[in-house]
């Protein structure tokens, strides 16, 4: 009798402990989920705000740009390079063997009209602004752009050819509104 009473007492205690453990873990898990949800607004508040997102498109008038000229416009507080390429630059960009490139991309995939190259003017390495917009700037061995920070060189299609940058200069979303104006973003 004593033995069975002991066993049942143990059994009851065992069940109670398990139940307690479950409640303990479930409460802890709920608490953790709740805390994570409460932290989320704090984290999300650091992401770009609505007024920053609202400035997400810029229109550019192309009519004053001469052949061979490159201009820089501001889009989402970043520099965007708009280049009106010369026939030689276009030819140089098109004749490249795409398979030899670090980030293989044909020139035709990077432009809407061969004469106009529109891209974000930020080196894909660590975010410096490459040189090559002014006529006196160094343009590197491929006559495109040269990043002064760590020596990355881009060709006349903005593709990475030499240096530490992993990718081509980024092509933003843009559309020709008319023949002489373009909207970026």
């Amino acid at each position, binding site marked *: 009798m004593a033995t069975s009473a002991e066993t049942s007492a143990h059994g009851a205690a065992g069940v109670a402990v398990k139940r307690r453990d479950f409640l303990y873990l479930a409460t802890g898990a709920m608490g953790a989920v709740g805390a994570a949800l409460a932290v989320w607004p704090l984290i999300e508040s650091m992401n770009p705000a609505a007024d920053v997102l609202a400035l997400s498109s810029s229109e550019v008038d192309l009519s004053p740009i001469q052949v061979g000229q490159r201009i820089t416009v501001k889009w989402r507080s970043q520099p965007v390079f708009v280049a009106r390429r010369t026939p030689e630059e276009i030819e140089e960009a098109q004749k490249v063997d795409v398979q030899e490139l670090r980030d293989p991309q044909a020139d035709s995939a990077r432009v809407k009209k061969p004469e106009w190259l529109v891209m974000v003017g930020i080196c894909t390495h660590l*975010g410096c602004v490459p040189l090559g917009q002014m006529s006196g700037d160094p343009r590197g061995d491929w006559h495109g752009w040269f990043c002064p920070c760590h020596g990355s060189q881009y060709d006349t299609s903005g593709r990475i050819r030499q240096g530490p940058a992993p990718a081509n200069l980024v092509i933003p979303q843009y559309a020709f509104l008319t023949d002489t104006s373009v909207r970026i973003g």
Partner: protein
Amino acid sequence: MSQPAWNSPVVKWIDERLPIFTLLHHSTSGYPTPKNLNYWWNFGSLAGFMLVVLIATGIVLAMQYQPNAALAFDSVERIMRDVNYGWLLRYLHMNGGSMFFLAVYIHIFRGLYYGSYKRPRELLWWLGVVILLLMMATAFMGYVLPWGQMSFWAATVITNLFSAFPGVGRFIVHWLWGGFAVDNATLNRFYALHYLLPFVILGVVVLHLWALHTTKSNNPLGIDAKGQQDTIPFHPYYTVKDNFGIGVFLIVYLGFVFFAPNFFGEPDNYIPANPLQTPPHIVPEWYFLPFYAILRSIPDKLTGVLATFLSILVLFVLPWLDFSRVRSATFRPLYKKAFWLLVVDVGVLGYVGANPPEGGFLVMGRIATAYYFLHWFILVPLIALFERPRPLPVSISQPVLGGGLAAAAANPMEKA
């Protein structure tokens, strides 16, 4: 360690309710410190002193500074020209950052030479590495606040390190910026964090000291104190020595403040930030140069970023990479050589980091980077395995007093 008896009834009344005087006693005159500490042991208290100076000058600078991209640069110029003693406060703060790193780097190399990271001081060492990481984040964000060209482009390049992570990199960077480029939102948050983090550092420093007072100080011989004959009270002996050290250190620090206040700075940072033009040579502050050199030595972006993080995080596993039970390099002929080679290697990395990554510098940087990791992951464990350390002295007193304390050495646990 004796329990203090308080004479003053006021002190006694307070101490019975909040044992703050007992706590102070245990960390000063009641704290037994090895009696053979050399001057390399001054740099911990020097670092603590610099932290206090930086917090004090920083709080009053914050009362004049405007954390807004349109106003920040001009508000710093106003501090320099119009605010009473503003020039002094800013130069103390600017050069204070460099001096803090100088003291901490010497403190770290002291720890590396004398094996202060080894059992039982692993957590003490970890807390120190955490302080170093927090210092780097704080210093970087403080450098951005004047909103000059170097500020802006340092912020751009360093935050862009996170873009190296595949997939999530872009989102992390936009989150850090609060926009699509470094801008006002970035400046605001860096200011908030630059004000916060020094107090977090202060908190970790308290933990660092707590761990120190639990395991007690290491010493140049790297052997444990065997009793009272090996120690002296921290106060007044080491408070006096530390204060003397602070006096010498202040000569150097104030020498820079008054005679070469822009020695560590870059002239380009007196040009207001321009998001459309990168300065031709971007160079970080001197205390980041070795890490910058590692970043640039590796041609692949992601690997470079990971190697840079690893170059500091390796310190966390050092207590297990160096499993030799002898602490002090004084008794480790091979480790001593490797230590000095590491010092030279870090110097070379710093020199390479200050120069453009071209030609000879690129080669030098790659060799120095390879050696840096070779030291931690290959040389240190191999030396621990194969080195034959010289015999250790019996006690801290024995090398000085010879056989005179042989009795004490024979019965090391005896309290004199």
